[in-house]
């Protein structure tokens, strides 16, 4: 009897700790480690970008929610590499999934559009100045 009680108690405890405290809402897929590695080895940039991409793919493939900030972080990484068109796709996804991000994402999408327009010197000249010069 007593061992059974102990087992039951342990099972209840395990259940509580699993569902009451330790459960995570999102599939982070190592987002924090990816950031840490990026800061530790900034020269391994490709790995960082690939990890962000992997986090998004894994979360989407399982029908889960891509954690807050991950679409945007990936979009930013693409933007920094001059891949503005691809970046916009992810800024839009962040904006759609997380409405709190909308004002910032709209700003980033506008910036990306400016970076795309003068292809030779991305983002070097504000778009307003470029347009003014053309007229």
């Amino acid at each position, binding site marked *: 009897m007593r061992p059974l009680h102990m087992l039951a108690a342990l099972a209840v405890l395990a259940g509580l700790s699993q569902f009451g405290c330790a459960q995570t809402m999102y599939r982070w897929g190592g987002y924090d480690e990816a*950031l840490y590695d990026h800061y530790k080895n900034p020269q391994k940039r490709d790995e960082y970008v690939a990890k962000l991409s992997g986090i998004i793919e894994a979360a989407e493939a399982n029908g889960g929610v891509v954690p807050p900030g991950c679409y945007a972080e990936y979009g930013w990484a693409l933007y920094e590499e001059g891949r503005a068109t691809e970046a916009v796709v992810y800024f839009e996804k962040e904006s759609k999934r997380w409405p709190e991000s909308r004002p910032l994402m709209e700003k980033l999408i506008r910036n990306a559009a400016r970076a795309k327009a003068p292809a030779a010197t991305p983002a070097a000249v504000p778009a307003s100045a470029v347009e003014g010069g053309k007229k």
Partner: protein
Amino acid sequence: MKRLLVLAALAAACAQPPKKDYAKLVSSNPRAILVVPVVNKSVDVDAADYFLSTLSVPLAERGYYVFPVNLVKRMLEDEGMADASLVHGTDPARLCALFGADAVLFVTIEQWTAKYMLITTQVTVEFNYVLKDGRTGEELWRDHEAGVYASDSAGGGLAGAIAAAIVAKAAPNYMPMARQANARAMAYPGPGFPAGPYRPEHRKDLPAAAEAPAAAKPAQAPAAPQAPAAPK
């Protein structure tokens, strides 16, 4: 009986009432939290970025939208704010307006050190966390966490201790301690954050004292959860 006692003890540990005043945080009711780069008072120059990487996950897991920390850091650098202490000295309302955030979390590393003794290595971390309102700039919440880990001879005897010290000497690993400090700081009930809008228990887990002011002005109460989103 034994089982009941164990459960009661666990329930008591979990239901420990929060000791701080949540009135301001509850009435501000932020949805979207900006985490800006960390001010580093330690001599380890890498600590700020390393610690920054640990903050998003536990905060988002409390049910808030957390702005992507690396994007934020890089955008601030582009705005001429590469120095974290400059960012921390900036008006919270201005920072939040730049990103569309409801509140901003300022984190400071007070200690991030390893002390090497003959056979033990003592690793110490200490952090201050302050959340400020994105409209008024008022402080909504704060916490302080510290942790000390010493590799000692309790487990593996002298040889084990020496081995542990050597391992620690090669690369003292601060990250588990940093994560533990964050987990303690953000746990609720505890010193941390009541559930944010993405958790099912949002607005249902509040201490009675913090709920009272909201109930006192019933005309505003139903509109309050939407209020932060309105200016966007």
